[in-house]
């Protein structure tokens, strides 16, 4: 199904994927009593902070992420994706690593878990990273810097 006016959008796949993400985050919340904030869980796994779950559980969650993508790839015959080159990936990775630690979260922790809880700090954080993300893409497009 396509969305009128947006031929590239995949609304049904988006809703299905989002529901799975919500269920995954609900398992962490109601099962382990913890937010499914991936930046925090990844930091915990590599020994750079985070709290709430054991390091073993953090590793299990982190390993599950590619495992889940692998299952989808196997079932669907491959996942369409195009990635930036090494330089933008390094710049992006550093900014994401620094920003998520200083900002105490990312798209999952603030964007999904915090916003659904109507947490004031998560609403502000999510609004902030959405705005700077939009501005970054707009500036890069204006400068003609194509990364993908």
């Amino acid at each position, binding site marked *: 199904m396509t969305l009128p006016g*947006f031929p590239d959008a*995949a609304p049904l796949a988006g809703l299905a994927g989002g529901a799975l*993400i919500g269920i995954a*985050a609900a398992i962490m919340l109601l099962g382990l009593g913890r937010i499914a904030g991936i930046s925090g869980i990844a930091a915990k796994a590599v020994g750079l902070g985070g709290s709430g779950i054991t390091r073993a559980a953090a590793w299990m969650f982190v390993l599950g992420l590619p495992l889940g993508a692998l299952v989808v790839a196997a079932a669907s015959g491959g996942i369409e994706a195009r990635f930036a080159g090494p330089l933008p990936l390094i710049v992006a990775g550093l900014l994401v690593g620094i920003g998520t630690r200083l900002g105490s979260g990312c798209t999952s922790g603030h964007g999904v878990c915090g916003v659904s809880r109507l947490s004031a700090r998560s609403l502000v954080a999510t609004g902030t990273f959405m705005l700077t993300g*939009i501005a970054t893409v707009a500036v890069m497009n204006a400068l003609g810097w194509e990364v993908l």
Partner: protein
Amino acid sequence: MRAELAALISGTLFGAGLAIGGMTDPVRVRGFLDVFGAWDPTLAFVMGAALLVMAIAWRFVPRIGTPLLAENFHLPQKSDLTRKLIGGAALFGIGWGVAGLCPGPGIAALVIDFNAAAIFAASMIAGMAIVRLVEKASG
């Protein structure tokens, strides 16, 4: 042991959800951020569905009192809003816009394009380590 298994199941469902929703494709994520160009609203559908499920899950927290597989809830502050948090979120957003990857998709994409995802993930961990070192040095 049961907590670790639940974490593995959660991570796997999360990774599958990202892949099904198209969020492991930086083209789609940057397409969502490209509101002044060829906007792709798919990410809003992913977020919307995830928020709906989680909004329901939050309502069970006071009802169950303690988590099913842990001693107690470890939940972040809701209102501890600092300049550091806003600055960090701003930096994260810039990085998100540059390559169209945030932590979850960056790690899940290891099975799609290992080299690209590994460069991103290693740089992300380096960034986290930098913050850790600076915070330790400044006490």
